[in-house]
């Protein structure tokens, strides 16, 4: 736990100083909403379209943080420093997943109100936040695994999205399935919410278990 806490504190301290990830993600999300607002020429969105716009925007914004989450480790020797210490590689995995979940949650603190501002539909937002948190865990877990693989490549900015986005399709289906009735025209409905949140939770658990199992091997040369 001490290694987990040390890496987590180091990453959060660095982000607070540099503001490299979260502000860029938030700005990207707001700009994308503006583009959708005028591109679709709609003042209100409901149902599957609303869910798609919100989730796709958050997902693409998350790529900015996922691409950067290991840059300091790679460029400033953090991988070597951590591998020289008597710590399990899974501490690094858990810390990076937690960091990404925090970044995504911070992003959504801005993105969800801005979505409501541009497209309306505030009634189902409280439950929607729960769905987004479950989705955050999946995006962060898979993002950490893929970013660890891509970080040693010169084409990491391309490889991470190319590997990650297809693997996130099941998560997007489940998150959209849960979000669509919450953003339905005429107010939120909770039909099938349990089924889709269960799928999201299962997805999260599968990739957490996978990361836990393989992460030490990913760190070796």
């Amino acid at each position, binding site marked *: 736990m001490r290694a987990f*806490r040390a890496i987590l504190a180091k990453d959060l301290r660095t982000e607070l100083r540099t503001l490299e990830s979260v502000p860029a993600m938030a700005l990207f999300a707001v700009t994308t909403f503006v583009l959708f607002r005028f591109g679709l020429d709609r003042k209100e969105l409901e149902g599957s379209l609303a869910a798609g716009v919100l989730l796709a925007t958050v997902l693409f914004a998350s790529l900015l943080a996922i691409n950067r989450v290991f840059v300091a480790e790679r460029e*400033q*020797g953090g991988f070597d*420093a951590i*591998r020289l*210490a*008597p710590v399990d590689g899974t501490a690094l995995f858990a810390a990076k997943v937690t960091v990404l979940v925090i970044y995504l949650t911070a992003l959504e603190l801005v993105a969800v109100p801005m979505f409501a501002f541009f497209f309306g539909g505030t009634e189902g937002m409280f439950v929607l936040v729960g769905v987004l948190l479950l989705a955050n865990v999946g995006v962060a877990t898979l993002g950490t695994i893929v970013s660890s693989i891509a970080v040693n490549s010169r084409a990491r900015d391309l490889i991470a999205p190319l590997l990650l986005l297809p693997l996130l399709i099941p998560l997007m289906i489940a998150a959209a399935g849960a979000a669509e009735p919450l953003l339905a025209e005429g107010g939120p409905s909770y039909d099938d919410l349990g089924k889709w949140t269960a799928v999201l939770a299962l997805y999260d658990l599968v990739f957490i278990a996978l990361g836990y199992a393989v992460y030490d091997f990913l760190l070796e040369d």
Partner: protein
Amino acid sequence: MEASAQPAISLRDVRRDYRDFPVIRDVTLDVAAGQTLSVLGPNGAGKSTLLRILATLLRPTAGQVEVLGSALPNQAWKVRGRIGYLGHEPLLYRELTIRENLEFNARLHGVEDPAGRIAELVERAGIARRADEYVRNLSAGMLQRAAICRALLHDPELLLLDEPRSHLDVAAAGEVEEMLGPAPGRTRVLITHDVEQGLEAADVVLALAADGAVAYSGPAGGISSAEARAVYGGGVVR
């Protein structure tokens, strides 16, 4: 330096390739606990690669590596935390201060009384007054001193030093020599281009030729300064 019978480092026919290109070839040697091994050789001979193998950061392509009684790479987890590594990169985060970097490493290594240990090291390295400066603002010499503190933070049994005097002025080099020098129970591997210093400090010498082959491997008394220098020009000692 007095040595115990148990080898701290044992290498048998160690080879490391990069994409079928051999960087080091057939390195065989023993270094007893408490001894100093000096690694000499021209640029590109594979000295830093050998150091990274000993640090558990690289896997050998072939051969057997045993460090502090554990076979690498399979038992790397047993020796991590007992090795201090000073390589070409300082392994410090640019957006943290020296002190924050050392605190981070101290927590990774489970150092007891990290504040006291950090205060002692930065004082000895002559960077106490600059310990709260961001690493990104440091000169190369200051960065090297901070990296030395990082390598020594957990009082390692095996110290791996890749040109530790790099970027240091004469006075600073003398100061860090005291920190990095022989100590009871400490085994050292020293890479240096200062042949005389390397031979003087060594109990065992490994000289690598430009193609990664072993030009000399044996006791320090078995190679003269002139012979060691000849290795840089392509010579092989006996």
